[in-house]
């Protein structure tokens, strides 16, 4: 694999949880992966850096490395302060994979800001974010819910994983084992992306295809299954379909596009790939777009792991190079005040929530608009920023 393709992807961990995830991805993948961790807490930064990851401190001048104390606004401000420091790490990067745990200050506050900045630079972003556990309380859940639309607004693809779902199988185990297992699962999904594009396999997925997939795919669901033994091909699909993260197969059957990764040992047979693909195609819609890749790794001998990203809002009609120019047929009319910029995703339904047009202006209905950076400043800021108000 050429150096360029390897480096076109960057893994970015945001906040304590995001850095830990990124570190475990790095650990399970080995060298050759570009990873960067950013956090406001110097201590957790140091731990992550010990694992060989490049780490940056956010908001050093504001928070002095003490973390945000759960305040998302502090996290956001910290990201704004130090966005400049992240830029040098983005050379040659086309697709950024972001991991973050929502609910607290840095993950919740800095992530939307970083995603927005990356999006403005024209990079494709795929965000793996986790929702907090139910036992972490209502406040954290609400904080996470509040942040999601802000990330969704600018992220090309958003994968939300509820920690409760992730741990559903490990209820009785020891805490450390459960955490490790869950992190391992999530990390394996993210690692798969790297393996698919960079490790030689029978059928490989190139970075450009992933880039296009992420751009066109929109929000995704993430799931996995694994099986061993003689009937492993059919079992692994069954395991995938019963995965809670995919809403027990519902996400597969409704998906408009699937990215399927087959991890197996050197004993993988061609017939097995055929079986798996056949079963997956049976499970999903007939016009579903399926991209697949295989990774052969000696440590998976005797086992098959299936990792899937299912995209429901896949827009098949968009040309492969949607960044150059927005296709006129696809775009719903957006208010003049919101010029469509290269890389803008206003065409998607969820982006169009910003096109208030004439309704959001109130007093300034018939006045010359105040435009700044393509935004109509007469429209209330809380609407443009997507801030939910407490009633």
């Amino acid at each position, binding site marked *: 694999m050429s150096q360029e393709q390897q480096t076109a992807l960057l893994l970015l961990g945001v906040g304590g949880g995001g850095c830990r995830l990124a570190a475990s991805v790095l650990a399970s993948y080995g060298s050759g992966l570009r990873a960067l961790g950013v956090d406001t807490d110097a201590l957790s930064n140091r731990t992550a850096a010990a694992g060989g990851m490049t780490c940056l401190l956010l908001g050093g*001048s*504001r928070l002095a490395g003490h973390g945000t104390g759960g305040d998302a*606004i502090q996290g956001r*401000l910290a990201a*704004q*302060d130090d966005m400049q420091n992240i830029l040098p790490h983005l050379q040659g990067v086309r697709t950024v994979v972001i991991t973050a745990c929502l609910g607290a200050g840095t993950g919740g506050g800095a992530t939307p800001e970083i995603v927005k900045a990356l999006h403005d630079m024209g990079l494709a972003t795929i965000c793996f974010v986790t929702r907090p556990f139910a036992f972490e309380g209502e406040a954290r859940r609400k904080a996470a819910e509040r942040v999601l639309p802000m990330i969704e607004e600018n992220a090309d693809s958003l994968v939300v994983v509820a920690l409760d779902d992730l741990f559903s199988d490990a209820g009785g185990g020891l805490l450390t084992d459960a955490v490790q297992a869950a992190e391992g699962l999530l990390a394996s999904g993210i690692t798969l992306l790297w393996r698919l594009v960079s490790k030689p396999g029978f059928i490989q997925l190139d970075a450009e295809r992933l880039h296009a997939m992420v751009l066109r795919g929109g929000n995704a669901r993430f799931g996995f299954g694994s099986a061993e033994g003689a009937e492993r091909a059919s079992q692994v699909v069954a395991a995938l379909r019963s995965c809670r993260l995919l809403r027990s197969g519902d996400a597969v059957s409704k998906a408009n596009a699937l990215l399927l990764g087959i991890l197996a040992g050197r004993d993988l047979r061609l017939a097995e790939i055929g079986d798996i693909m056949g079963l997956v195609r049976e499970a999903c819609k007939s016009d579903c777009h399926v991209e697949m890749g295989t990774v052969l790794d000696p440590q998976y001998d005797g086992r098959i792991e299936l990792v899937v990203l299912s995209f429901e809002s896949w827009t098949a009609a968009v040309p492969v190079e949607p960044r150059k120019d927005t296709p006129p047929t696809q775009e719903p009319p957006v208010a003049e005040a919101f010029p469509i910029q290269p890389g803008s995703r206003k065409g998607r339904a969820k982006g169009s929530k910003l096109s208030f047009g004439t309704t*959001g202006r*109130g*007093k*300034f209905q018939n*006045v*010359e608009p*105040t435009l*700044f950076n393509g935004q109509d*400043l*007469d429209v*209330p*800021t*809380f*609407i443009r*920023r997507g*801030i939910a*108000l*407490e*009633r």
Partner: protein
Amino acid sequence: MAIPPIAALEIGTTRTVMCVGETNESGRVKITGVGTYPTIGVRKGQVVDLSQARVGVESAAKQAEKQADVSIWQVLLATSGGHIQAGVNPGMVTIRSNDHVVSREDIEEVTENAKEVQVEADRQVLHTITQAFTVDDQPGIVKPEGMRCKVLTLNVMAVHGLKNRIDNAVNAAKSAQLDVSDVAFSGVCAALAVLTPEQKRNGVVLIDLGGGTTNYIAYCNNVISAVGCVAVGGDHVTNDIALAFNIPLNRAEEVKRAEGCAVIDAESGGRRVVLPADVGFEERVLSCKALHTVINARMDETFRMLRSRLDEAGVLPHLGGGVVLTGGGAYLRKATDLAQRVFGLPCRIGLPVNVDGLEKAEQPAALSTAAGLALYGRMTYEDRGLFSPVKNIFKGWFGR
């Protein structure tokens, strides 16, 4: 030479202010009369309804006349609006004398060159403010006279706006039977009234939070290095509140003044604000936190926008004197706290300390622009009245 009383008129978006300033023996300006009246017919600093704007001007003038015991027929006018722009215009002169020593004539010539600002046909230059001389390639020279060099350069900050917008404001004053002798940019006026020499030396940014516009002016090393205006102000905050809670604009304005706060903090959590019933309006209860969230979002955005403008102008690292807020919006609770967070600089409210007579006024910072305009009138009196027929030549007086 005695300077007659000066009348300064500011047709603001929320209210029209008329100040009468008299110069005492020591040269300080004392405000002897203040007239204010709520403005109608102005949006974002620009006149949209002449006849309605006239009513405000007439009422404010009457009030000020009565208080100062004068009769006003000529005024100075402060203007603002998103159309106001500023840019640096360099002037250059080659020193022709044999010894290459800069003479007084050279300085005059370069000043004249620099003030020949080229703007588009539909724009009018309001101010040309001298910055600093560059002697050959050595910048930042204050007094180049007697220095040896080949080329002398002077940078001038030119503030200009759209001619027809400025004329509209002038016409509003004229329709109230007032002659307009000069027009000045509100931000420059506010800086004259508020900023101290010490602050200008240290580097400071003045943010004038008006009703429809927010003006800013930054000093670095005694030199005006950034001037501008964004058409976002207190009206936007009110409008945001009205849209967020679906209440009329006047109720939104009331609740903003009574309960508004620029930061969301512990004391806003859980508290609720009651909007009493009125004719055709049921009693409403709002969450204080939601109210503060709406205000915070708007103010944060405004400050951030200014920050990015200042960053572009390259002045952000040179503001040792911090941020000074003035104008009516400065009285929004904790506005200074928010500015402090956004800019990372100390922030305080600036009162019109360079003029006398406003100590007892309610919210004196809201009068900064009009008071500063009177001061401006005193400073440019000679230019306008006796020595120079050219208006608007602003001889780099402030800052030095």
